[in-house]
């Protein structure tokens, strides 16, 4: 009985605190994305003719999913269908890593990142790690 209560506390803490932290993170992301929206990202690999200097830039982030999402995912896994909570987690991690990459490119003085690549990895089933890299190009 006690274990059930503890689990319920974890799940509701996960839900409420997790949701607040997620919303705060998204707000923060919007601000950072707006500040660095002039840094272009391209998956293409051809260097432009007027490129002056290039530097490899890499950024990564590991985001853990909250207790409520993990519990809801376990249930959804049995029922089948889309896992919207995991999609949100992936979106957050990708956007955070990309924002960091843009910041690094801006520090180098570049306006564009070429050869943009994303690599994703699951961490123990409780979170996700996103690794983005490319070459910042100064024209």
């Amino acid at each position, binding site marked *: 009985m006690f274990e059930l209560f503890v689990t319920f506390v*974890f799940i509701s*803490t*996960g839900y409420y*605190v*997790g949701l607040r*932290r*997620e919303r705060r*993170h998204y707000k923060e992301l919007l601000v950072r994305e707006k500040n660095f929206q002039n840094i272009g990202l391209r998956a293409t*690999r*051809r*260097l432009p003719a007027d*490129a*002056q*200097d*290039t*530097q*490899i830039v*890499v950024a*990564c*982030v*590991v*985001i*853990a*999913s*909250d*207790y409520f*999402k993990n519990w809801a995912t376990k249930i959804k896994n049995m029922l089948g269908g889309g896992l919207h909570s995991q999609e949100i987690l992936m979106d957050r991690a990708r956007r*955070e890593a990309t924002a960091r990459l843009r910041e690094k490119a801006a520090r180098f003085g570049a306006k564009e990142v*070429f*050869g943009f*690549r994303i*690599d994703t*990895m*699951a*961490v*123990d089933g*409780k*979170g996700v*790690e996103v*690794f983005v*890299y*490319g*070459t910042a*190009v100064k024209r």
Partner: protein
Amino acid sequence: MLVTTLEQLAGYREVEYYGVVSGSTVRAKNISKDIAAIFKNIWGGELSSYTELLEETREQALQRMIKQAEHKGANAILAVRFATSDVTRGAAEIFAYGTAVKVEKHV
């Protein structure tokens, strides 16, 4: 050592080719940094100690790849790619690979 994820470097041309070079590292996490992770597992958010671990691992893999290229006599590595994997609980492997070449400035 010039390193790029593209196939060319601005203002340089390739004069010699040394083949594919790579570097890889597996690092285990420090348990004492794990306390914050326990709370993060309840309410989510970034696991900054894991992120740091990944960044250090990646730096070391890159350095190992660069050392291999230097050993061959190259001064640049082109088309660099990374591959990551979870080796065991709390350990991360990062594998960096690219094409080692010698480049010289365009006249």
